[in-house]
């Protein structure tokens, strides 16, 4: 995925959005941008932890295991997941 792909069209972001909606269905219609901050979504900490878990499951990556659960925005999370997924493919 070249970095020039619009955020909304990124397949990685599409997967992340699916994970968010799986945990918090009421966010289905929410407009997300790269600058959308997770702490502004009104989520409980257990919801954020569960979304992270769903992303790890979907992409087969270890966000928490690598001490990387430090993202603040959707854009940062998308970049992080893309990087981890790419690294996994290289390793594989």
């Amino acid at each position, binding site marked *: 995925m070249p970095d020039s792909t619009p955020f909304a069209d990124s397949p990685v972001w599409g997967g992340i959005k699916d994970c968010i909606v799986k945990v918090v269905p009421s966010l289905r219609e929410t407009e997300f941008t790269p600058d959308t901050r997770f702490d502004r979504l009104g989520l*409980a900490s257990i*919801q954020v932890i569960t979304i992270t878990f769903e992303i790890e499951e979907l992409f087969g990556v270890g966000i928490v295991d690598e001490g990387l659960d430090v993202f603040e925005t959707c854009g940062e999370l998308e970049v992080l997941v893309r990087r981890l997924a790419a690294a996994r493919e290289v390793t594989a």
Partner: protein
Amino acid sequence: MTGGRYRRPDGSHRVVVTGVGAVTGFGVGLPAFWQGVTEARTAIQPTRRTFEGMEVIRPAATVAGYRPLDHFSEAQLLTCEPFVQYALLAANEAIAAAGLTSADLTDAAIVLGCGGGGEISREETAIHLFANRRPRAHPTTVPRTNHQAACGMIAIEHEILGPSFVIATGCASGSHAISQAAMMVRHGYAERALTGGTEANVIYAVMRAFDAARTIASDTCRPFSSGRSGLALGEGSGILVIETMESADRRGAPVLAEIAGFGMSSDATDTVQPTIRGPVRAVMQALADAGLNTDEIGYLNAHGTGTPLNDRVETAVAHAVFGPHAARLMMSSTKSQIGHTFGAAGALELIATILGLTRGVAPPTVNYQGADPDCDIDCVPNEARAHRFGAAVSQSFAFGGVNAAIAVRAV
């Protein structure tokens, strides 16, 4: 000060029930429960659970028309299994019925019975880790599976700061919890308590487990009847507000009944085969504790699982305790209507007993096909009976050979 309206002969507080709430196979709320009971319906139906091409269909009573999002937020549902949800719904109903607000409950105790806790999440986690061979468990596995989540949720909702805990004695959990809570209120550890039980474990693994124990009925639950073949699973919650008589009077609360006495015992014989001596001891203790003679008991809500052995033994227990009065005793099984709700059973059955006491109706045993000579008691077959009684007993027995009985009295 001893005796009188506010104190028992030993000087401890008289304890009364001032509000009840229920979630059962008949739906959410006490009106649905009582309507189902008095209309002599059953909520039990063939219930299907599947896993990857495997299927099991067994009789069960799950909560009709239940939609979690009608009652809870997404954030709450993430950490609350149905057994927790049901407990909070029943507690809210009981608190409102008692005319209490959260501010009245700051120092209250919460004592609930729950047999299995978060069985749904345990099953999902087992599938995830072992069948799907995934390395991580779901992050909510621990908070969802904890039995005490039910107490915690009620405490959070109403900002209750008093003691709260769960008693897990399987099928007797609810009766043990109410006995324990009544003991605490009697002796001043709390002036008020929310007590009862909750359970929601009608899942594939539990169906298979009870199947393997040869306890599930082939068709439906028909206690004390000819042709009975076992229990039906059930889910739900029953919660009671109990308080000292003094507290109820002080605030002009409606008093439904007095928790007059309770008895608890162990069979000390076998893990799965019930005895007569254990339950007899519990019921006799409850009557003695209440200061009630056997012939004052007009109605008994039986454990009444519908297994061939339980009902035979329970009939023998009734004869041993009540002697000739057993022939006049109405003794029915609410499990024939709402299934075996395990940790909630003792509470829901006591609620049925109390409503029967206040409204002059003996709850029925439904699905009754005909007499079994081993069960020569009046099980109020197939129709609720208009009949006033001033005192009653509800009793619960559990695997492990543990028993609890509660005696209630009209006030």
